[in-house]
C-alpha cells in the first residue's frame, strides 16, 4: 500500500498553524489519489522532536514516504510550490498522460 507519510511541525495553536493544516489537508484531498498519514508535531510541546528532525522554521512539512524525503517550509499557501516540492506535480502529469 503506497500510503503517503507526512510530518508537520508547527508552533502551538496559532492561526498560522491551523491555516497550514487546512491548506495541507485540502491539497492532499484534491490532488492525491492514495491515502496519507499526517503527524502533527507542536515544537513548543515537543522540542526534542524538532531537535531530532533538525527543524528550524515553523511550519515545516516533511514528506517521509515515498522517497526521496522532501522538506517544505511555509504555511503551504502556495499550492503549486507545494505540489512541486512534494514531487506530486509530475505524478499528476504522468497520470494525466497515461
Amino acid at each position, binding site marked *: 500500500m503506497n500510503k503517503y507519510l507526512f510530518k508537520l511541525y508547527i508552533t502551538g495553536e496559532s492561526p498560522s498553524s491551523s491555516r497550514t493544516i487546512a*491548506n495541507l489537508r485540502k491539497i492532499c484531498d484534491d490532488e492525491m489519489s492514495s491515502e496519507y498519514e499526517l503527524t502533527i508535531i507542536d*515544537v513548543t510541546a515537543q*522540542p526534542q522532536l*524538532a531537535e531530532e528532525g*533538525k527543524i528550524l*522554521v515553523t511550519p515545516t512539512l516533511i514528506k517521509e514516504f515515498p522517497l526521496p524525503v522532501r522538506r517544505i517550509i*511555509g504555511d503551504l499557501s502556495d499550492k503549486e510550490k507545494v505540489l512541486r516540492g512534494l514531487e506530486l506535480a509530475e505524478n499528476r502529469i504522468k497520470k494525466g498522460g497515461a
Partner: protein
Amino acid sequence: METKHPLSLQKITTNIPGFDHITCGGLPRYRNTLISGTAGSGKSVLAAQFLAEAIMKSGQSGVFVTCEDSPGKIRANVASLGWDIKRWEKEGKWLFVDATVPVEGQVVAGRYEHGAFLARIKYAVGVCKADRVSVDSLDAIFCQLSDRASVRQELSAIALALGQMKVTSLMTVERAKEFGKISRYGVEEFVADNVIVLRNVLEEEKRRRTIEVLKFRGAVHKKGEHPFTIVPGEGMVVIPLSSFELTQESSEERVTWGNEGLDAMCDGGLFRDSISLVSGASGTGKTMVAIEYICGGLNSGERSLLFAFEESRKQIYRNARDFGTDFEQMEKEGRLKVICHYPEIMGLEDHLNSMNKTISEFKPARIAVDSLSALERVATSRSFREFVIGLVATIKGQQIAGLFTSTTPTVPGGGSVTEAHISSLTDLIIQLRNLELNGEMRRAITVLKMRGSQHDKDIRELIIKSSGIIIGEPHRNVAGIQAGHPVKEPRPNE
C-alpha cells in the same frame, strides 16, 4: 542623600582576556550582543570562547547554536585554541544546536517563522542549564528571508526569546566590508541592544585585528578600537589601551643601576618602579647600559628579565661575563631570564601578549628591553604606539623597574619615533651620543630628565671597557653635543 542605581544593568564577566576591561565589566546580563565582522575577523572564535571561558573558569555551561558549520567542524576548528569541546559535551557543559539547513534543501511555500529554532534553543538551554548562548552565524538564517522588514522582525523575535530564557547571548553576523554598513541588511544593529564590531584590516602590508564596542544600550563601555590577537592555546586576547591608569603608588625607594657613576648621576639610584629610556645611535653603548642594569639587579638579589631583540644569547652572555656576572649560571638558578627573539617572528600584539605572560609568570623585579626600536620595524606606527603603551602599563601596574633602549636613526643622535611615543611615559631619560673630538670618536652620556629627583646636569664622558662602563668627567669646553654638532669652545681664560 546617596543615590543608588538599583536598576542599572548588571554585567557578567566573560573572562576573555582584556574583553571585560573594554566592556567595563563584561556583557550586559540576560541581554543579547551582536558581533559583526567580515569573514576571518574572529567572530566564531569569540562566539566559542564566550562559552569556553565560562566552562573553564566559572563552571557554567553553554549552548552553541551553529547555523553554518557542522558541530564536527567547529570541534576541530577550536581544538588548536586548546578547547576540548568533546569532553565538555560529555560533561554536559557544552551543547550544540545544529541549525544548519539540511543538505537536501527545502522548498519555500508561504510564510514561516523561526519557532522551531527558538524551541530547540530553549530546550537545549533547559537540558544543560546553560547560562550563555552563542549563535554563529545568523546570516545563514537571514539569507532565506526576502526583505529587511522580515529580517528585523525575526531578529527581534530571536532576541526577545533569548532574553526570556534568562541567558546572556552572543550572535554573530557577517558584514561585507570593514567600514560602512555594520551588517548585511543594515537593520541588525538597530534591533540589537548591544553591538560589537570586529575588524581585520590590512594596513601597510600588516594585518591588524581590532575590536570595538559600538553600543551598549543602557551601559557604559570604553570607546574606540582596541587591538586584539588570537593566540594558539588561548583564543582571543584583547589589548586594552585604556587600562593604563596613573593610580599606582610611587615608590621612594631607590635601587642601584649596578654602576656607581650612573647612580651618582641619578642622585643615588633609580626609583624602585621607574621606567627608564636609554636612547642613542648605533654604537653609543645602549646594550652595555642595559646589561649593566641587569647585572646591577642580579647583584642586589632582584629577579631580572631581559628581552633581547638585537643580540643573540651568546653575545649577551659574553658581554655579561666580561662585566663580571655569569648570566648562564644565573639563568640556571632561575634568578634571570633572557628571552632572545627576532622581532619579525610575530606581530606586535603577539609579542606584547607573550611578554606580558612571561612577566606575570616570572615575576621579575627588573626588566630590560633591548631594543624597543627594533620592534618598530615590524609594525605600523599606530600598532607600535599601542604596543609601547600596553607594555608600560604592565610594567607600571606590577611596580617593576623597567629599562628600554631605543636606537636613534642618525649616528650623532636625534629624534626617533620610539622616543616620541615613549618619552612622556618614562620617568627617566638617558641620552647617549657619539661625538668626534680631536680626531677620535668619543661617547657622551646625559640624564635628560628624572621625575621626582635631582639629577646630574652634566654631559659626561662614557667609557666602555671590557670590564664594564665607566662614567667619566664632564665634556667641558664642548658645545653642541646634544644637537649632534660638537664644537670646541675656547676656555674662558684663553
